[in-house]
């Protein structure tokens, strides 16, 4: 049936509709879905990691004894109070800061620098104000040998994917904060990284846009089989998206506990089981 194979996008979204319909209809489909999504081997091993900053001549212990194993394809949420070292940890994993104690091992190798296979979306969108939306995304290709037409094609596809068609030529100041975040996400995804690091990507957005982008992120993660680490202040967001929620504690920054979220996707925010997990995580903050 050629019509069923018109385009990958169409067949994927059709598949999604069928899956979510199936989830509502019959519980055994959920089971099958989970089996299919079962995480692979350990992809990223964070072992006894510590980080100390020099601040006005004093040693500031920001991270202490962080241990975390993240499996391939897993979605990890990290929550914790402001200043507990979440961004610091993410920068270590990204390879932006290599001065740390302990080991961060990614795909068998200790992290000693940045890698195009590990994409990061910063806490602020960090687009370059002098580059248009498409030029900002295309910049990610600078260190690759992808051909010019191929870059163009992929940039366009990525822009369409994050719903920004028509804004290719806009400068960052001409688009909204939420759109800027989507451009930043597109920039991080364009190189098809296997590991995606997100630092409170939706923190600056209004509640409605945030809900929409959370759904988009979940969709992207499902389609691309990414391993994802999401840092967030928002416990509901952490539970909605994560396979596991890592709760951090400050002074020094350390892991308090890890809460598994074994609810089927997409999660229903109003479901009692969802509330139970969310409230459980919230007790760590009061």
């Amino acid at each position, binding site marked *: 049936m050629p019509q069923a194979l018109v385009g990958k996008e169409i067949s994927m979204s059709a598949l999604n509709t069928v899956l979510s319909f199936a989830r509502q209809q019959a519980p055994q489909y959920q089971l099958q879905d989970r089996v299919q999504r079962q995480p692979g081997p350990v992809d990223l091993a964070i072992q006894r990691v510590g980080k100390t900053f020099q601040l006005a001549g004093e040693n500031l212990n920001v991270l202490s004894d962080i241990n975390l194993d993240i499996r391939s394809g897993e979605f990890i949420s990290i929550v914790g109070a402001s200043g507990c070292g979440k961004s610091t940890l993410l*920068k270590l994993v*990204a390879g*932006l800061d290599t001065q740390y104690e302990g080991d961060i091992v990614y795909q068998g190798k200790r992290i000693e620098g*940045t890698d*195009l296979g590990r*994409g*990061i979306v*910063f806490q*602020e969108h*960090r687009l*370059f*104000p*002098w*580059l248009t939306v498409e030029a900002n995304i295309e*910049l*990610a290709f*600078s*260190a690759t040998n992808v051909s010019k037409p191929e870059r163009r094609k992929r940039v366009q596809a990525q822009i369409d994917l994050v719903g920004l068609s028509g804004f290719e030529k806009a*400068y*960052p*100041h*001409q688009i909204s904060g939420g759109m800027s975040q989507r451009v930043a996400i597109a920039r991080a995804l364009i190189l098809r990284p296997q590991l995606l690091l997100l630092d409170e990507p939706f923190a600056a957005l209004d509640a409605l846009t945030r809900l929409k982008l959370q759904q988009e992120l979940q969709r992207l993660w499902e389609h691309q089989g990414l391993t994802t680490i999401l840092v967030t202040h928002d416990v509901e967001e952490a539970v909605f998206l994560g396979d596991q929620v890592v709760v951090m504690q400050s002074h020094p920054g350390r892991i308090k506990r890890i809460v598994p979220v074994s609810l089927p996707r997409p999660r229903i925010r109003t479901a009692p089981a969802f509330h139970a997990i969310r409230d459980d995580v919230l007790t760590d903050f009061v």
Partner: protein
Amino acid sequence: MSIGIRVALGINQADPVFRRRNQLRLVAFLSPLAFILLWWWVSRMEIFPTQLLVSPDAVLLAFLELLDSGELWEHLSVSLSRLGTGFLIGASSGLLFGILMALSRTIEDLFAPLFQALRQVPSIALIPIFILLFGIEEVFKVAIVVKAAFFTVALASYESTKGIPRHYFEVAQAYQLPARKLYTSVVIPAILLPVLTGFRIAFARSWTILVAAELLAADSGLGHMMQMGREMFRIDVVMVGVVLTGLIGFGIDRIFKWGEARLIPWRKA
């Protein structure tokens, strides 16, 4: 609104309202006109000896006379070519040096103290030494312009490069931008506006110091023409030089401003 408040509020040049205000409107000509009228009136009243304070119409006549004989164009073209050569060399090397000193720890450690000390020396104080070093011919005049342009542009590009947010470099690092791309896509655009302002200031300084140098030691150029006028007691010729110096400086400054607004399309309104 004062410039200070504008800067504090982040109102910038590409803002259409600002651009409109920036354009010369008719009222802008009121004060120069009043000034010329006052000048004309004072010279008519003969408060000062007429040989000393010549009237505007005498200056205009002298201007036409100099223009007609081709003398003015000769002096002017010599001055402008010295200015152009010196400014080009000084500004481009200053730009390069400023960026490198900001980005390389080694270059900064090596040169920053010397640079900071040397830039405090007024260009005019260097004229005697430059004459001794480079002679009284062209090299000395171009060298003094190079000096004036170099230090001003180098300081502007050094400080603005130092001020590029670390965030931008982290993005560059995350995407492993090659050095060339780092300069063309991050460093240069980030410092463009302050560097252009540096260019404007450097240009004004170069022009002033060149005319001063020509007044002191030259056999051609606008400054020399004024010096000759003074020696022959032709104050009208001196005044032609004064007015032209001002007008040329003003004109080129406007061109820089015009370029600034057009080179930076990404500035928000």
